[in-house]
């Protein structure tokens, strides 16, 4: 009986992981094809709706000035722009920094949220009724929007079916630790290959909740933000597409972010993503399958995206099954399936990226020497697999025991804070982009 179960588990693992691997090969191959990627750059500057930029900030004194100054310096028509800076229950100087900017720049609207549930979704739910834009753009506080970022992101909204848009995230602190370098490669694969290929193929690029935006009427049509979700962006993406809205991807709207510099922070981040995605899968799978607006392939790919973090425990299941078969003398079956499992499993790791996708992304980005780093991605693979399995075990045990859902956790920042201190990460800190002069004005630092 045990042997039969082990064989079935191993076969299941191999089939699922092979399907994912094939999917990623197709995406990478599509990006290597000569077909022009779908893009909206030619309309940059010609689509000028009224825009509200929402920036939720919970204890973000280290980075608040940078994002606000970046937005103040953008080239969008101020008559059609408002920056809604949300001080979300901060206990540090974030509120003061926001008030200071709001006093000097009428384009900035300060909103202070004193209590209520934690999480970005809750902060956005609080601020959205106060925003007046036809389009709501979102940035996390640790991002550095370029001068034309807003124009680039709003261009796809000339299409009345586009409900949300996503730009490309590029890590700023790439070379600080091995982890940041590996995450940089992973992000490149996720955006340059995964997101762009899905957009080109008429599937659904994912709205990531930052460096992106949503049409206010589309948000209204699906009932607003889900403050209960750990990944309110994924939740919104699939509620929108199930209703019939499209998500556009703008690869050239590149924006810097900070990625985790330590494995501990990375573990928490990917654990939150895994839990949020899996929550969304359970909540939205039936509405995706029943949707009249989605094609068969769009439904299939949506389920692939939402189930992606389940591949980690499925892979572990395959490993355990292999061991069982090996030690019960089922060598012929175990050998064949284990080799297949190794091949398929090797393709799957991290944030839905495969080795092949990493290589293609490095090539498309003109950073082909980075492919030499790929063997080191094994560390990220094992660490992510462990973190995801742990998070999903806690999630499912929590559901079984009725102990409630996991708590939202803020991702740690690594830039110098407002007092010139650094976070103790053992590697120094990323310098601030802007510094406050004696006159109170922020100017771009020479080291930024």
């Amino acid at each position, binding site marked *: 009986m045990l042997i039969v179960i082990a064989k079935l588990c191993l076969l299941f693992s191999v089939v699922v992981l092979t399907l994912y691997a094939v999917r990623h090969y197709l995406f990478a191959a599509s990006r290597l094809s000569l077909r*022009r990627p*779908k893009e909206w*750059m*030619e*309309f*940059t*500057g*010609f*689509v*000028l709706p009224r825009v509200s930029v929402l920036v939720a900030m919970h204890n973000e004194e280290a980075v608040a000035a940078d994002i606000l100054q*970046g937005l103040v310096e953008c*080239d969008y028509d101020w008559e059609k722009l408002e920056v809604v800076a949300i001080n979300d229950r901060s206990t540090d100087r974030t509120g003061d920094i926001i008030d200071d900017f709001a006093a000097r720049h009428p384009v900035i609207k300060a909103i202070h949220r004193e209590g209520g549930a934690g999480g970005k979704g809750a902060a956005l739910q609080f601020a959205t009724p106060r925003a007046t834009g036809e389009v709501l753009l979102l940035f996390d506080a640790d991002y*550095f*929007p*370029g*001068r*034309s970022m807003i*124009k*680039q992101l709003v261009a796809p909204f*000339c*299409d*009345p*079916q586009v*409900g949300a848009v996503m730009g490309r995230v*590029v*890590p*700023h*602190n*790439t*070379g*600080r630790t*091995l982890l940041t*370098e590996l995450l*940089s490669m992973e992000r490149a694969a996720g955006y340059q290959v995964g997101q762009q290929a899905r957009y080109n193929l008429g599937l659904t690029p994912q709205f990531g909740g930052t460096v992106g935006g949503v*049409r206010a*009427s*589309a948000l*209204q*049509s699906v009932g607003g933000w889900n403050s209960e979700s750990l990944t309110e962006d994924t939740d919104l993406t699939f509620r929108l597409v199930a*209703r*019939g*809205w499209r998500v556009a991807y703008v690869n050239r709207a*590149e*924006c*810097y972010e900070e990625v985790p510099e330590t494995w501990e922070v990375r573990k928490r981040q990917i654990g939150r993503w895994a839990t949020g995605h899996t929550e969304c899968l359970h909540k939205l799978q039936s509405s995706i399958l029943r949707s*009249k*607006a989605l094609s068969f392939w769009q439904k299939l790919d949506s389920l692939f995206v939402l189930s992606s973090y389940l591949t980690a425990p499925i892979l572990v299941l395959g490993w355990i099954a292999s061991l069982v078969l090996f030690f019960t003398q089922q060598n012929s079956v175990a050998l064949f399936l284990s080799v297949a499992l190794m091949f398929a499993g090797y393709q799957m790791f991290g944030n839905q990226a495969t080795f092949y996708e990493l290589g293609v992304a490095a090539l498309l*980005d*003109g*950073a082909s*020497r*980075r492919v*030499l*780093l*790929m*063997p*080191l991605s094994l560390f990220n693979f094992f660490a992510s697999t462990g973190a995801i399995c742990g998070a999903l075990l806690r999630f499912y045990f929590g559901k079984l025991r009725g102990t409630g859902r996991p708590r939202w956790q803020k991702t740690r920042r690594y830039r110098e804070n407002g007092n010139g201190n650094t976070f103790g990460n053992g590697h120094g800190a990323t310098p601030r982009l802007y510094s406050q002069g004696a006159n109170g004005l922020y100017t771009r630092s020479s080291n930024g």
Partner: protein
Amino acid sequence: MADFVAWRFLIFVAIFGMLVYLQFYLAHREWRKLKGEQASDIDVNYVRTEDYFAQSFRMKAQDWLKLPSSVDDQGATVIVKGNERIRLLENLGIAADGSCRDIVITEHDFSCGPRSTMTREIWARGNAVVGSESRLQALAADGAVDLGENVTIARWLDSNGPLTIGAGCRVGARITSRARILLGTGAEIRSAFAPEIGSAGWDGKVTHGDPAQFTLLDLDLSQDSADVGRQMAAAGLSQDRLLQLGPDTWIYRGDLAPSVAIRLKTNLVVKGDCFLPAACVLEADLRADGSLFLGPSCVSHGNLIADGDIFLGRSCQFSGLVHAGKSALFSQWTRGFNPQATVAVYADENMSLETDVAVGGKIAAGGRVEVVDSTGAFEWKARRGIGEKDLRVLAKGQGS
């Protein structure tokens, strides 16, 4: 024998181990090189401007003018910067079949005769006249530009004054003007940006007569269901195919082909092809997952988007953006102007303009923008299976 197998196994293990070690060794070596480096730089100060190449060249040229200069045998001032030779002249007139391999900056006008070859950039601070069948690298003029027939410009073309492109000219990249661009028949370019862009035969008027005043059937999908049902039935459409997407946007499943001219008041997404008869008025955005065919004299105040082709019949007017996922054809007397903003037209493949078409803003294509005569327009329609019968159907509005 057993010893032999063991040796083979050990050799295999050794080679395998070396290969594993090698990839980790190379990876570690690469990591040590990259450690401390930042990501590939994003220029956060980047602002997209349509005349970027020309302005960038002018700025570089301004810097070169500050360098020490000498006088050559022909009395021209020459600046040498590395491998570059920059010639400064009051005026330059090159005779037919002439050529020049230097970057040229003229204080006043520039002209060259037929079949001239200029292999480097030219900056004329006055007007520029280029003879027919000449070949140029790139040209910036502070005055007007006049290209003769069949001129080839490998890269960009920019002017502060009016810019006239002769018949059969080819420009490899962007054309920009701060005044007006006139494209001759058979001209092929990648993109044009100017307050006014017209194809051959355009007389400079932003409208071709007033929009036709016909009785239109109002289609306001935001009204209550019974009213919408009556409107849809009168237009020969099925209400069952209608799906509300958002407060101001609806989806129509299948092809949309109203039997009478309509006034569409809400955003509409058509999950198929869209055929609108003559004289329809679109007050909001219209999108088609397939192709979009507008009959003559239609007026669009919103954006027109299609994953397939877009065809605008004669005398159509639009004031929003037009995006075709494949190609587009604008028929004679089409006008695209908006007093409050610049309009933009883009086709992922090719963009074809018949004669006497005008747009205020930008026309661009992933392939090429071309001015076609009636034969070219006929071929475009024939390739897409649009025959005379279809055109008659499109032209058959209630008021036509």
